[in-house]
């Protein structure tokens, strides 16, 4: 399985994300520039955290105007997995690939600390290795992670089981404690916590690893017939 890690000017979590794929999963992975216009060679697209394009105007707003985003849109429409972490989630919201928007954290502070998450839906390509209701220790690091959507969107998220992760203790003011959501089809995931920072007990937690393992396992299963 071949992963792309998309790098914008200002992205800062690309090495951690790359290393998980390379070292923890032994899968193929390449960095892809924000100027790239083609992602056809990749099976899954990872959009890592950081402050892409300096978070100017709004986090993700300028990043969304870069050439690579057309290719991300195309990959998403074709059903490929597109996974945004932290700022990557903010970019997917700006791109309209996921519903809603991020506001400033309710306490107006940048928060960098471990959080406890709950797996709300384990019936996805990203979470099948977890138990439903499993609690995970995964850190957050953001100033604008206060997820907001209108009531109609929230009802839709609930109806389609698109709320994947919630905080057990809401750190930032997010609606319904939301930490991560998918699109209706389930091939796009965005989450504010950083699972790539929780993949080894040396980091204090390895609870994030199963997200990446789920991705690979599901991809192998769905491609086994062609092998």
């Amino acid at each position, binding site marked *: 399985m071949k992963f792309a890690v998309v790098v914008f000017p200002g992205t800062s979590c690309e090495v951690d994300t790359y290393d998980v794929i390379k070292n923890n999963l032994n899968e193929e992975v390449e960095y892809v520039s924000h100027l790239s216009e083609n992602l056809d060679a990749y099976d899954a697209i990872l959009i890592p955290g950081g402050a892409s394009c300096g978070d100017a105007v709004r986090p993700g707003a300028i990043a969304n105007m870069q050439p690579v985003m057309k290719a991300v849109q195309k990959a998403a429409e074709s059903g490929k997995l597109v996974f945004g972490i932290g700022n990557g989630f903010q970019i997917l919201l700006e791109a309209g690939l996921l519903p809603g928007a991020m506001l400033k954290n*309710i306490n107006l502070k940048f928060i960098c600390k471990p959080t406890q998450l709950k797996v709300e839906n384990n019936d996805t390509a990203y979470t099948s290795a977890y138990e439903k209701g499993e609690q995970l220790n995964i850190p957050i690091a953001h100033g604008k992670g206060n997820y*907001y959507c209108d009531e109609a969107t929230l009802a839709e998220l609930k109806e389609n089981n698109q709320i994947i992760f919630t905080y057990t203790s809401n750190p930032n*003011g997010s609606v319904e404690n939301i930490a991560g959501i998918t699109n209706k089809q389930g091939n796009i995931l965005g989450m504010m916590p950083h699972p790539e920072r929780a993949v080894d007990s040396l980091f204090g937690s390895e609870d994030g690893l199963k997200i990446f393992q789920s991705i690979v396992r599901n991809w192998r299963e769905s491609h086994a017939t062609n092998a």
Partner: protein
Amino acid sequence: MMYKVKVFVTLKESVIDPQGSAATKALQKLEFPEVQEVRVGKYIELKLEKSEQNIDETVHNICKGLLVNKEVEDYRFEIEEVVAQ
């Protein structure tokens, strides 16, 4: 001729404004108990060359395309014609 455009971006009424709430509390504690609410927005100035395009439409597209997140923000703008320097 050029246009000077003033864009005012505000959070939608339905959206909680943490900055505004903090400012409200601070002002009330300071010496302005009469302050009921503060909402913090953004003010953006654009300078545009006159072109064939309809200026109103262009500014709407600029706002929707980048300056404003329609999920949580509203906007309005004022257009002035100015002499290019």
